[in-house]
């Protein structure tokens, strides 16, 4: 059994929380005492049934205002798969929280209200999905009960969405007509929409390919920690601990250590009390090298025959996440895996109006702004392009005055 992490984009009005509530409810993932707490709550649907949306609103302010402010993580499993849902707010003022939720997801569910069709926020949410490089997209046309379960309405909406998907280069899009409120096509197949021949949302989620851990074949391991017991019997023990970002390391592979450029060979791979022949993407291991090279936290061990980019000037997409605007005159910290160095945003190439997808020149980035910039780093980073290798192509910006995470960066090109 494996894990599928997905995130949901849509606003309260689209019935996003109701959809998640429905998934949990119909898969029997809500326990009796939680249901009892729900029943005690005075938020009910018009017909007196439990408002499933309350299940996902965790904070007092969210319950009071009836909106989702921050990402909530929900967990459920079926016999086939474990699911982690990042329930993200859909409103434009919480775009950064949507980006946060999307950053670890392998699949996105985009909700469209059947009564309204493709609207401004559908474009915004879909843009974020493409920006964050999420491979699979499920477009749920919700509230089908409000449009008499009409196939014509459904077909017209997906016709419009297909144009958007093409524009955003979303390759793998699946469309499902649902009613989260009534339960049609969420877990159980709809009895009213006989014209729909596809699967219910849950069945699709159970089956979709999760080839997500190993998209890139390039072997990369950032060193997080050097294990040196310094005991009598392990006097010379020196192991490099880290998580394999991508690809595979085999014993006897030739490797390069960046930024020093030192060459060596994998001598041994350990995982606690086991010795492994190979370590694959996703695994947290300890690697030993044949040669005594100087390696510390922040260095990256890579396959010698497939080196990453190494520059101090990088073209990247930036999502600004702080209430204080970007200041191109000051230095920020950039954190790329275990490496931290100083940087400046040396140039703003353009900003994207995420409601219309139009690009325009800009002097400043404010909260929730997204666009293309040039980052200039103090030390060179050993990175891959985001589209090739999500884990080694992303970084965050930290404001050293406040220590807040203020920006998310997706590397698009090395600037020569």
């Amino acid at each position, binding site marked *: 059994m494996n894990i599928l992490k997905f995130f949901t984009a849509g606003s309260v009005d689209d019935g996003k929380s109701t959809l998640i509530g429905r998934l949990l409810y119909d898969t029997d993932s809500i326990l009796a005492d939680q249901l009892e707490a729900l029943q005690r709550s005075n938020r009910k649907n018009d017909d007196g049934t439990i408002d499933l949306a309350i299940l996902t609103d965790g904070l007092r*302010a969210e319950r009071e205002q009836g909106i989702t402010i921050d990402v909530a993580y929900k*967990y459920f499993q079926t016999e086939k798969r474990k699911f*982690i849902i990042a329930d993200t707010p859909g409103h434009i003022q919480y775009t950064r929280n949507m980006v946060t939720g999307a950053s670890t997801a392998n699949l996105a569910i985009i909700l469209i209200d059947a009564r309204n069709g493709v609207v401004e926020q559908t474009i915004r949410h879909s843009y974020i999905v493409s920006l964050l490089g999420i491979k699979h997209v499920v477009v749920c046309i919700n509230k089908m009960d409000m449009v008499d379960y009409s196939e014509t309405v459904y077909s017209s909406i997906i016709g419009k969405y297909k144009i958007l998907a093409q524009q955003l280069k979303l390759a793998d899009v699946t469309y499902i007509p649902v009613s989260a409120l009534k339960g049609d096509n969420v877990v159980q197949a709809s009895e009213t929409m006989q014209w729909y021949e596809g699967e219910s949302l849950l069945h699709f989620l159970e089956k979709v390919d999760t080839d997500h*851990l190993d998209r890139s074949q390039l072997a990369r391991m950032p060193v997080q920690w050097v294990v040196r017991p310094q*005991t009598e019997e392990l006097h010379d023990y020196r192991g490099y601990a880290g998580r394999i970002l991508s690809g595979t390391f085999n014993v006897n592979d030739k490797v390069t250590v960046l930024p020093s450029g030192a060459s060596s060979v994998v001598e041994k791979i350990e995982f606690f009390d086991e010795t492994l022949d190979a370590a694959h993407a996703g695994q*947290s291991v300890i690697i030993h090298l044949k040669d005594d090279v100087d390696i510390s936290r922040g260095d990256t061990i890579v396959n010698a025959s497939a080196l990453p980019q190494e520059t101090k000037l990088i073209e990247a997409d930036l999502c600004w996440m702080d209430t204080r605007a970007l200041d191109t005159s000051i230095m920020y910290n950039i954190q790329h895996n275990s490496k931290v160095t100083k940087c400046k945003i040396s140039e703003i190439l353009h900003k994207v109006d995420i409601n219309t997808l139009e690009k325009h020149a800009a002097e400043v980035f404010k909260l929730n702004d997204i666009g293309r910039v040039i980052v200039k780093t103090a030390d060179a980073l050993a990175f891959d392009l985001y589209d090739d290798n999500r884990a080694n192509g*992303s970084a965050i910006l930290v404001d050293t005055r406040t220590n807040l995470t203020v920006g998310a960066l997706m590397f698009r090109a090395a600037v020569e």
Partner: protein
Amino acid sequence: MSTYNFDYLDELEAEAIHILREVAGQFEKPALLFSGGKDSITLVRLAEKAFRPGKFPFPLVHIDTGHNFEETITYRDQMVERIGEKLIIGSVQESIDQAKVVEQTGKNASRNALQTVTLLDTIAKYQFDACIGGARRDEEKARAKERIFSVRDEFGQWDPKRQRPELWNIYNGKIHKGENIRVFPISNWTELDVWNYIRREKIDLPSIYFSHERDCITRNGQLMAASPFLNMDDEDVVERKQVRFRTVGDMSCTAAVESDAFLIDDIISEISASKISERGARLDDKVSEAAMEDRKKGGYF
């Protein structure tokens, strides 16, 4: 698709090890908060996997309410002996003796809330900049919102409205002096995941997790272990019951469930079929809908 076998427990484990190593790499004085419960026992195993054959780069810290299940303390001491790591104890009794907190009175008195003061004092005394805890997002809806690296201000407070964005697997551990970060490596695990992991790893647990006979009383619909720490009166009827505990906390606020689960397989079947959440047996969460959110804002685990 790669052909190697990497299932959900492997993935959760690898993520937790990565987080623990980030703590080691980013902080000067981290600590692992150890309660003697199954989640913190799981953390210890994960720390072994992250750092062996080296030593842990942090001590274990137990915030001791003094109202413990004896079995937990025995377990704790044996475990510390086995792994050869340092244990620091923060004592709620000491906080009471120093008049920093006042013991609750009345029938439902518990030391659970007092722990926060002792925890914050212990953090200040040893100047811990990161405290690793075993909280999980599936436990409770305020926890479902919390980051893996969760900043606490100088007063130990969590501000749910001002959480830092946490992207990809990059954790920002930068803090100002006086602040600290709570780190939750098993945020993405469910109760069932923890049990399946304990089974797979053959991890020993305190005996109170398994079915045993015990004197209990019924309070507010919950079974409580009869103990000197519980304020009992004539209305309380002591009954001998076959029970086990799903969580291990202060004796005065942790309820038992009737159970015949003697083995870990029995427990896993029991939980899989259960219709009550784990924290349903915690009186501390029943106070109000925002009970956990409020305690976390005040500096709780």
